């Protein structure tokens, strides 16, 4: 499978009476976006705003972050099984509005979470302080159930991203990146001397507000399976997860999965990137056994020499992570896992809820309990109110000068278990 990503570099977003891209500026017809959002009968009101890197702006509570993309050639369309038909994606050409993102915000449940600061100390921790963001803040109709609300906001984000992506269909990219996977047979023939490596991605699948979708299928219902890494670049995997801001994987990170990128960077040089296995993180323990058995089995079936396993979320998935690691290692396959830590505010507690000596190669995204003081910013998009209630925020955390003290876990993407960031801990 061969996919070309054509980057259209975006360095600013501005409102205009016409949506278009010119000289790296994304012009957005605000009224058109609002009308698009309000097509959904569950949404009562919407506000659309722009947050640029360096501005004194805080976005909270963040639900999802999506990168605008459009499928130019090859089969299918963006977000297959959800926005587009379920055709297989991952080949041909896809255009990307590089440097921009759609951020959805709005309170879904009372304890919601997720902060993106565009400047100050908080900006160092979230990857989305570096993108120019079109922020869509929706309020639902009265009496809506949380799962309907989550679904509506999820769809809003995807629809706006697709709308913006469409603007780049006929543009000439500033840069083209090519990603090509080979079949099992080709791989053996082409790279006989290189270690065979796969990526095992664990998807959050615990239930309401904790879901991930694969071609529209709730990941809770899947059994571990193979997927081409290029499929993820066209939105085959998307996030319905609103909980645990610091270590959930927003749709943006599925589209730009850094493990996929960094394995591709070594593909054909130091290793043979054989492919990708997706598995889940269910609550039911029998599912965990089945999924980890199956994952290890697939690794063996692919004749792997090595695997990287990434996690999403906290607590329950630690058990899946350790099960996967233990079972893959038991097949004689070298494994590295990527996780984050909850070592307590003073860093002295046990970091994970599970452990095993087989997990001897761990990359960490940092201690999510570590405290951080965020300065008062001029403008808040969304609502500051939930900050007291978000995971990692705590009562009376508003200091006298208007700054707030939170645990790192309140910041969107801060301790990414896909390894998006340089943050680590020792």
């Amino acid at each position, binding site marked *: 499978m061969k996919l070309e990503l054509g980057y259209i570099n975006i360095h600013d977003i501005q409102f205009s009476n016409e949506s278009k891209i010119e000289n790296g500026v994304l012009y957005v017809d605000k009224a058109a976006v609002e009308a698009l959002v309000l097509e959904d009968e569950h949404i009562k009101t919407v506000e659309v705003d722009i947050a640029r890197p360096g501005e004194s702006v805080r976005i909270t509570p963040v639900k999802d972050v999506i990168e605008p993309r459009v499928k130019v050639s090859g089969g299918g369309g963006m977000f297959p099984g959800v926005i587009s038909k379920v055709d297989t994606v991952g080949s041909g050409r896809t255009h990307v509005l590089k440097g921009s993102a759609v951020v959805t915000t709005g309170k879904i449940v009372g304890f919601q979470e997720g902060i993106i600061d565009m400047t100050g100390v908080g900006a*160092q921790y979230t990857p989305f302080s570096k993108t120019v963001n079109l922020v869509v803040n929706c309020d639902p109709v009265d009496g809506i159930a949380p799962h309907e609300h989550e679904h509506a906001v999820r769809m809003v984000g995807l629809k706006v991203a697709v709308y913006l992506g469409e603007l780049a269909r006929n543009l000439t990219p500033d840069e083209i990146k090519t990603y090509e996977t080979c079949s099992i047979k080709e791989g053996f023939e082409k790279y006989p001397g290189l*270690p065979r*490596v796969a990526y095992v991605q664990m998807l959050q699948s615990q239930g309401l507000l904790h879901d991930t979708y694969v071609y529209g299928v709730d990941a809770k219902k899947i059994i571990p399976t193979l997927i081409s890494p290029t499929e993820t670049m066209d939105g085959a995997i998307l996030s319905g997860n609103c909980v645990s801001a610091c270590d959930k994987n927003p749709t943006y990170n599925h589209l730009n999965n*850094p*493990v996929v*990128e*960094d*394995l591709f*960077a*070594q593909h054909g040089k*130091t*290793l043979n990137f054989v492919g990708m296995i997706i598995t889940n993180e269910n609550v039911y323990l029998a599912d965990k056994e089945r999924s980890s058995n199956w994952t290890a089995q697939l690794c063996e079936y692919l004749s792997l*020499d*090595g*695997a*990287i396993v*990434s996690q999403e979320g906290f607590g329950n998935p630690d058990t899946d992570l350790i099960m996967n690691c233990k079972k893959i290692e038991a097949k004689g396959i*070298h*494994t*590295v896992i*990527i*996780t984050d*830590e909850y*070592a307590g505010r*003073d*860093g*002295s507690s*046990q*970091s*994970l809820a599970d*452990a*095993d*000596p087989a*997990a*001897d*190669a*761990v*990359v*960490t*995204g*940092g*201690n999510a309990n*570590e405290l951080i003081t965020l300065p008062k910013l001029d403008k808040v998009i969304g609502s500051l109110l939930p900050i007291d209630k978000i995971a990692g925020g705590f009562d009376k955390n508003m200091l006298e000068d208007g700054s707030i003290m939170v645990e*790192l876990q309140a910041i969107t993407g801060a301790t*990414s*278990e*896909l*390894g*998006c*960031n*340089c*943050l*680590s*801990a*020792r």
Partner: protein
Amino acid sequence: MAKIKVVQYINQFFAQIGGEEMADYKPELRQGPVGPGLAFNAAFGEDAEIVATVICGDSYYNENLDEAKATVVEMVKSCGADMFIAGPAFNAGRYGVACGSICEEVKNKLGMPVLTGMYVENPGADMYKNSVYIVETKNSAAGMRDAVKKMAPLALKLARGEKIGASAEEGYFPNGIRKNFFEKERGSKRAVDMLLKKLAGKPFTTEYPMPDFDRVAPNPAVKDITKATIALVTSGGIVPKGNPDHIEASSASKYGKYDIEGVMDLTADTYETAHGGYDPVYANADADRVLPVDVLREFEKEGKIGKLFRYFYTTVGNGTSVKNAKGFAAEYAIELKNAGVDAVILTST
């Protein structure tokens, strides 16, 4: 700002007094820097200076621990300094243990910031890395320049009460306290690099070492239990009435060894528990509930076991450090082995 005043602890060798033959050298306080102190002073520049040096022989320190600690602490106190540095000790075992021990003592007694340095395999590193900052050095004094380069800036930070970064940034041994910091590469790249090393069989460093499991492989089963000598050992705190050795109710610093020759049953009049971590009523009423002497005597009589060992060993598990517990066991396990005991029943609370 006034210069930070530093006191340094070094051994007889680094003071150029002598080698092993001078290891009994008693603590001596000298004004100003001695030996490695000169290199530290150079590194400190205008920010700090070594105002005094304590010299002590390695054998003297380790063989007269209490006295040595007390003397050195007094000497350090008399200097009115802001910071205490011991070593670096490199791979010198007794020197490393002394450096860790005296740093811990100075920190606890004088509340001063302390720092030492040694090689990863120095036994002092494992013993004290969780209680004091220990900078990782090379394995010989040839690594002095490198050690000073790492220790001097960290010492300044400690003396000024500045925020201390993660172990990987500052160069100290991981001490069980997790600290965030920014790596040069993103996590995914670090994972790929780590995997490539692992695949190639090259050394790599995990960013999160799994907790130390310290599992003990079970011994083979006792061949003939009817001939075996069985000993009782407990962390449940059972002691002769009155707790003659004053084993502490928590965080025990010692264990007891008691003769039960002829004792058929532990009664409320003869035995009790010293343990402060559980309701003692039932154990005090009948200590056999924790240390089953009565049942084992029956088994002995019926020929189900060979015999019950003449002594039992006991301590209080409540809050007792793993280090102490390991130390106790290392001592009495040898006694049990030498006495021909075939098996031990360990009871807790």
